[in-house]
């Protein structure tokens, strides 16, 4: 028989004593305890990605910053989620994201409902202090119902993961390296020609920005419906038990 007590870890987050299951991440425990850690690539119900780096936290005795979304709790850990240094790093990372694409919120379908835009406000990013790169990126509007505007894509890979892990189609993937990296459908063929896409719309709904949207939506009209994700994962977990 397993001994339940050894599965419970106690730790401190921002000075607050908290208890956690040993298989939980710092992020999960923080959320359960109402402690906010900013996230962007992470979305409940999909595997963690660890790419946006906004959830980095400090852990006493560890000289590297650790991503809360993938780091598991340990007994006696002392976690700090919001030091001035972390705030500064997060703002710069956000600025880098904004500088990398072409984000014109005023004319964006998700204006007012965008995870990235909301984070910029929440983390106090007043302006972008790194030079804008103004890349020339393509739009794919070949699908009947949806469209992809790569100008607003932040490469969080939520679309890739939901399509692979939940829908099982693996229509999306990432192609290219560095700032040239971009999402593609099938073997880099137009989305509308995709043999694998089931048109379920899951990617559109998990996309944190206005990169993926429903056609026919005007500025600020698109809102994302994410309720399906925790529901589906929960149902599947039950079934596999």
């Amino acid at each position, binding site marked *: 028989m397993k001994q339940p007590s050894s599965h419970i870890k106690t730790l401190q987050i921002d000075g607050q004593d908290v208890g956690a299951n040993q298989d939980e991440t710092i992020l999960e425990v923080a959320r359960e305890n109402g402690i906010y850690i900013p996230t962007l690539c992470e979305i409940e119900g999909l595997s*963690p*990605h*660890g*790419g*946006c*780096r906004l959830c*980095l936290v400090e852990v006493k005795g560890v000289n*590297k*910053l650790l*991503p809360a979304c*993938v*780091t*598991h709790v340990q007994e006696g850990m002392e976690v700090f989620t919001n030091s001035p240094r972390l705030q500064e*790093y997060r703002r*710069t*990372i956000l600025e*880098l*994201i904004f*500088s*990398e694409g072409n984000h014109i919120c005023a004319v964006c379908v998700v204006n007012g409902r965008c995870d990235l835009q909301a984070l910029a406000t929440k983390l106090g990013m007043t302006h972008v*202090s*790194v*030079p804008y*790169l103004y890349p020339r990126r393509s739009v794919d509007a070949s699908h009947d119902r949806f469209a992809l505007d790569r100008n607003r894509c*932040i*490469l969080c890979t939520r679309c890739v993961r939901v399509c692979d892990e939940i829908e099982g189609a693996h229509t999306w*993937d*990432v192609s*290219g*390296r*560095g*700032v*040239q*990296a971009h999402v593609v459908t099938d073997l880099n063929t137009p989305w509308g020609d995709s043999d694998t896409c089931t048109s379920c719309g899951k990617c559109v709904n998990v996309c944190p920005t206005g990169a993926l949207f429903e056609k026919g939506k005007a500025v600020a009209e698109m809102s994302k419906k994410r309720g399906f994700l925790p529901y589906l994962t929960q149902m599947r977990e039950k079934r596999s038990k």
Partner: protein
Amino acid sequence: MMIEELHKIAAVERDEDNRFQHHIHVCMETACIASRSDHVKQALTEAAAGKPCRVKGVGCMGLCSAGPLVKVEPEGVLYQGVTPEDATEIVAKLGDSPVSRLECDTETPFFKRQTKIVLENSGLIDPERIENYIAADGYLALHTALNTMTPAEVIAQIAKSGLRGRGGAGFSTGLKWTTVAKSQGERKFVICNADEGDPGAFMDRSVLEGDPHAVLEGMAIAAYAVGASQGYVYVRAEYPLAVERLKLAIRQAKKLGLLGENICGTTFSFNVDIRLGAGAFVCGEETALIASIEGKRGQPRPRPPFPAEYGLWGYPTLINNVETYANVAPIIRKGADWFSAIGTEKSKGTKVFALTGQVVNTGLIEVPMGITLREIVFDIGGGIPEGRKFKAVQTGGPGGGCIPDEYLDMPVDYESLLKIGSFMGSGGMIVMDETSNMVEIAQYFMEFSKTESCGKCVPCRVGTAQMYELLDKVVKCEATMDDLLLLERLCDVVKNTSLCGLGQGAPNPVLSTLRYFRHEYLARIQEGNRETAFVSH
């Protein structure tokens, strides 16, 4: 394969060798072949026909810049820059006075100051003949390990030797093996990292081309120690010759029962397969490499879990560098104490470097840890050509740093290099003289990091592109002091928030040149200040 058989193969091979009065070794590695050593070998073979002389292709003899290299044994005469037309003369003069016009002095520090463990067979044996390796005590260590040592004893030897990973970070090899050995898993894997993507580096390629069995033997011993039965060599497709030799070596070892099922008559089985990388630098990072073998996009994932616990297809996996494996058999054969007597307190053994740049002797060198940079650059390297002044030496590849002359007397070991803002890395060593501009050097490395970034994490993906643009402004005398501040701020963010070593190391060339050659940045900024547009960010 029993020990007697092994000895017999060695004896036959030696007898065969002894039938010849002279042996002519022709380097048959990529660098010398590029200067037509294959034609030289052909011509020499024709010229030597019917004479008591045997011509054989061997691995690197070190002084790549002087290739094609040819060595005559037992006299130990080394010829440089040999052409096919020289063949008849060389053969004719065998046993007589050497062809002085081609002779290369081997009494110089370049040859005398080296200590060879990893490259002990390089230039001596024919990498395409397993018998030649066996005659040089090859596979003796594997035999000893399998028949006289427990896996724990093997690991204890490696741990005691103080061997540390040669792929970059210098993690204790013994500790890594212990972790994999302790990890629970239905299967375990052993991987050899031969991705070698640093610009200017060719140590691993040389080892694979010149002595592939040394790597296979090391892997087999490792597999025995950690309990793995399958190995992979992940090698970049740009190394066709290394791949060919490896394939051949695997076939030969299997045929002799030194790989495959029931090795050396024991219950231990171990197979090795080759996986080709498509030339992405990041695929040298262990988790990206594993993803690539699994057929996925080659990009790193956060660690922990480390491959030792959760590696290839989720199984415990040992991943070591080519040079690390090449050290294993000598350690088992000669003992941990022999090995740990070489080097410094914390960095044991030798390190192979690819010495390049503004230095007289460029090529492949193996030196004991703790040797000074001055000895490498000025003694072994022969100093800077045309009497120019030394400026800096770059180690650690795109994640390393530029070291100025004030540190020339510092010992070369993992800790010392780290302390002065550089990094051991896998063994690239680029010497720069007074004509080099350090801002341009920093920009060169940043361009490399920017194009090789996998794009997974924001700070590395965008940060390297931004830093590159800022460096470009400095180079073009268009930058302001605010740009310099921004550059330093981005270095800090990218170094501390990137996911893998590529991003974490990418700012190092900038940071180290800012630390030691800041005036070169300032000069370019001041030059541009005549046009005094106020630009702030």
